[in-house]
């Protein structure tokens, strides 16, 4: 498993040296700064607006980074032919995929961590330290990103980055409307359409179950059991998607 770590570390290094990624991160920092100016323009509880925009912005940009890096995770190795030297080494292929996935996860954790730190500093100077709920929201954001990254990794094992991005964005969007999808399925008339909707609801992850950002913004406490349950759901679902990705990757020919 030491070699899984070697691959993860290299994936992290690649991401850190990626100019596009750094630009997105820079953009996120700008957005956080901009959120401060919003309080001048908003009416009512300005502090909540700042918290809401900062949290929402962080989660959206982190999702963009997760998809952007995830879809190229395997494809880039194949396209740039670096896979030849990598996959010919004496280690099981699933170690490669796991290492790459973990590397990406560490990258995302570092990015979210950095943004959270920046957010804490900004907020501390403006309205005091953020509540625990904000940090829990960030932890659950990581669970959501694990899942999204797992899907992007799965798509990258067989599709081009363009197609894989489209698929991943679909998963992201449908995942955030999963509750509506369930409602829609329940109210639909019996028939193939209803069956299709219920299957879709069961296959697609419910990304809203990781969203406790509104509670964090408004200072509403979230029960620990809910946080733990969502975390476990994210972990289990990610593992299942990764397992499918590993099976596909194991069978691939690198021409």
């Amino acid at each position, binding site marked *: 498993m*030491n*070699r899984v770590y*070697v*691959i993860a570390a*290299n994936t992290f*290094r*690649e991401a850190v*040296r*990626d100019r596009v990624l750094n630009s997105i991160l820079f953009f996120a920092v700008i957005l956080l700064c901009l959120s401060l100016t919003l309080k001048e323009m908003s009416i009512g509880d300005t502090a909540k607006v700042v918290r809401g925009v900062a949290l929402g912005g962080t989660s959206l940009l982190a999702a963009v980074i997760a998809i952007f890096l995830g879809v190229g995770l395997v494809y880039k190795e194949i396209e*740039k*032919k*670096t*896979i*030849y*030297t*990598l*996959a*010919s*080494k*004496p*280690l*099981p*292929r699933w170690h490669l995929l796991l290492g790459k996935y973990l590397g990406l996860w560490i990258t995302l954790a570092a990015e979210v961590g950095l943004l959270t730190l920046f957010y804490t500093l900004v907020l501390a100077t403006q309205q005091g330290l953020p509540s625990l709920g904000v940090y829990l929201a960030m932890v659950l954001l990581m669970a959501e990103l694990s899942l999204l990254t797992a899907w992007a990794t799965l798509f990258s094992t067989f599709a081009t980055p363009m197609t894989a991005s489209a698929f991943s964005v679909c998963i992201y969007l449908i995942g955030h409307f999963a509750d509506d999808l369930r409602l829609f399925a329940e109210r639909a008339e019996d028939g193939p359409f209803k069956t299709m909707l219920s299957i879709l609801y069961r296959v697609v992850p419910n990304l809203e179950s990781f969203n406790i950002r509104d509670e964090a913004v408004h200072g509403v406490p979230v029960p620990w059991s809910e946080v733990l349950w969502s975390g476990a759901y994210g972990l289990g679902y990610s593992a299942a998607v990764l397992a499918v990705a590993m099976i596909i990757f194991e*069978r691939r*020919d*690198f*021409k």
Partner: protein
Amino acid sequence: MPLAIRTEKLGKTYLSGFLRRPFVALSELTMEVRVGSSFGLVGPNGAGKTTAIKTLMGLQRPSAGQAWIHGVAITDHESRRRVGFMPERPYFYEYLTAWEFLDFYARLTEVEAAARRPRIEALLERVNLDRFRHVPLGKFSKGMLQRAGIAQALVNDPDLVVLDEPMSGLDPLGRVLVRDIIQEERRKGKTVFFSSHILGDVEAICDEVAIVVAGTLRGQGTVRELIGQTADEVDCTFVIAGDPPGRVMRRDGDRVTVRVPSGNVDATIDAVRAAGGHVLEVHPNARTLEEVLLDEVERAKLVNEKRLGVLA
């Protein structure tokens, strides 16, 4: 004799296009590579050399047959434990420096921590990249990348080194460097298995050669065996006024080249000297590896045409 590589009717068929048409890239390749030998795989473009190498390196799954590296089936990743591999036209992580690049592969092949630094230092020096250790690979020229690739293949001090077209993209100096490295590895008792278009190099450094044409093995043996060095005839060039004994092949002023049976060489030279002539050159009338390869390509074409004729 222990074997580094053994293949038995190894085959690879690709399904290409929308209709999944089969394309046979490699068919029934049976060969043996002895431990400690330098083995060259030669053939024209698209002959199946790279397919064979990729299959052996676990990058593709064989469609038929079996193969073993150091006695372990290639389907087991453990077969590549004592192997170093450089693919054709290597592309590497552009964001890594030469040092980081070698360190990454050394860690991946589980080179012990204490041995890593001296090993990487020695290899960078060996391939003349020590001055560029902190330069990212993205800034390397094609030849430098090729040399970095060879260093990467040797980083775990493998018993079997597999190189796909190691000479391509190299200037004459780079080629000499690669040739020296291959011979050095062989002297250390390592097995070197490589494919090449540059047949002169193959002739110079290989103990054994396999010729692959259109996905099938067309011959295997020592270079001597393949080019028929045990030629029955010898070409002798003399400086002499008249005609020396033997079949005259070429005449340029008083320089005459004659072809004589190998048993008559001494007598011919004696006769030329007795007539006041000088010996300039004596060499067996053997084919070059290039000629052997071209013959095999022609033969493969004929077989193919015949088969198509039968079908028609």
